[in-house]
């Protein structure tokens, strides 16, 4: 049977792909399944009661704090996504269309370096920049531009949004860049030849063709930001905590893993639902235009 497997191309391919596949299955699908299972159980201190119950979900629906937290988290993620993608598009466009081909890797390299350094440290540095006695405030005070330190830039949602937009920038830039690179430049020339100016060519040809990259960028930023825990914890203040912090609290501080699991499930479902809606809307929009 092993021989049969190794003798055909598809057999060898399947054999080769099985270690990474089963690893992902074991460490992703299985634990996710466990989380879903856990959300239907209850925990008292260290004991876990495995009788099936919907209590956790009821708790989430009944108590307004969870709904509010989820809403706030989805809102923040959405805003971060919009800001990040909007800021990212021009730079992806710049590197794809205005940079010499042999310089492109250099730009991409420069753009991605900050991303590879410690996330924790970068968040911390934003705290330093935006703080009451931080770099911006002391700098502006010194120059004399302001009389008192600005307070709206730290320990609230704004700080969270700025920090996350910074952290996820390359996630947004790269997919858009890849999509823009794939566009056949002669299509743009054809559009100009047929009478469109630069701006209209962008909206009628470039943007629709870059859409798959934009969609990928949106998803790559939106989905992980829901799970971000560090930024809200360090920068959010009391009013800036998000759903991930609550999940962490339930798991580690309050020893209520089932509730934490239920929250995680609800968060993931919301994110998946929103993403699917986004993808479907996008397909319809693209089809409607052509």
């Amino acid at each position, binding site marked *: 049977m092993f021989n049969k497997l190794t003798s055909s191309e598809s057999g060898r391919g399947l054999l080769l*792909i099985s270690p990474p596949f089963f690893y992902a299955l074991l460490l992703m699908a299985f634990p996710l399944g466990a989380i879903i299972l*856990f959300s239907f159980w209850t925990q008292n201190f260290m004991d876990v009661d495995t009788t099936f119950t919907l209590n956790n979900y009821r708790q989430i629906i009944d108590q307004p704090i969870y709904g509010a937290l989820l809403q706030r988290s989805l809102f923040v993620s959405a805003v971060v996504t919009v800001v990040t993608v909007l*800021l990212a598009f021009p730079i992806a466009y710049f590197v794809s269309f205005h940079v010499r081909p042999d310089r492109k890797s250099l730009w991409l390299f420069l753009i991605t370096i900050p991303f590879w*350094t410690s996330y924790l440290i970068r968040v911390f540095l934003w705290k*330093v920049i935006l703080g009451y006695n931080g*770099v911006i405030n002391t700098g502006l005070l010194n120059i004399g531009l302001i009389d008192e330190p600005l307070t709206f830039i730290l320990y609230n949602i704004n700080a969270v949004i700025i920090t996350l937009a910074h952290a996820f920038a390359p996630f947004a830039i*790269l997919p858009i860049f890849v999509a823009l690179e794939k566009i056949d430049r002669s299509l743009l020339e054809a559009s100009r030849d047929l009478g469109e100016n630069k701006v209209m060519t962008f909206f009628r040809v470039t943007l629709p063709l870059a859409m798959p990259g934009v969609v990928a960028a949106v998803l790559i930023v939106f989905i992980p930001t829901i799970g971000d825990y560090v930024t809200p914890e360090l920068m959010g203040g009391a009013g800036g905590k998000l759903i991930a912090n609550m999940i962490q609290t339930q798991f580690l501080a309050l020893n209520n893993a089932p509730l934490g*699991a239920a929250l*995680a499930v609800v968060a993931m479902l919301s994110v998946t639902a929103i993403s699917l809606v986004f993808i479907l809307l996008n397909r319809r929009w693209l089809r409607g235009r052509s």
Partner: protein
Amino acid sequence: MSLRIYAIAYLVFLYAPIVLLPIFAFNDATIIAFPLAGFTTDWFGELMTNRSLHTAVKNSLFIAVMTAILCTLLGICAARAGAMYRFPVKAGIMGFIMLPLVLPEIIVAVSLLVVVVQIFDMGLSNWTIIAAHVLICTPFCIAILNGAFQNLDPSIEEAAMDLGESRFSAFRLVTLPLVMPGIISSMLIAFTISLDEFIIAFFLSGTSQTMPVYIWGLMRFPASLPVVMALGTILVALSIILLTIAELLRRRGMARAGVKDKGGFL
């Protein structure tokens, strides 16, 4: 070109926080604020003497090295299978393996915590962190190695076999040297990601901490902030060096295979 100005401004925005690190790591003050107070290397000195930091560093290095090796091995399997073979449900399987890229880290951390502690009742250790890191790093390794494998002429392994080599020695003598820059790149990137990773390590570290978790602890104390700056400077410098090496290797790999550089590891 206004777009160029925007691009430069964007780069400033990206690098602004990082640039602060060396500035305040050498600043002779305990408060991180302007104006600057003078030059000192005291904070770096403190790093040298800190015992718990050394343990955390050792843990982090061990985890990062193991992660890099395991990830790269899995990545080689996946990239080779993707580039050289056709098999049923290929797109689905490859997509599934890349899924951790879009999973929020907290979900990964939390679900593994549940499985390891509650279900299997095992203790948390470096190996649980390694397991989780391998899960999230493998997609990156695959992305890099995909590039390396796809640059190969698919017939060269067959040519090697036709000339007398077995399947495995054809891989060893012909394919492996050509993807080696990609392999090293992949290991460096996985190493860097693992070294810097916080959320999963935070959830899954038992008694032993990793470096980011240690830094998190330090952040509670305002007095130790400059030391954090010093540590951060070293970490960032290290990451940048490793990444530059990875990038140079990637470029060399492409030159060796005689392929033109189209930009980035995508």
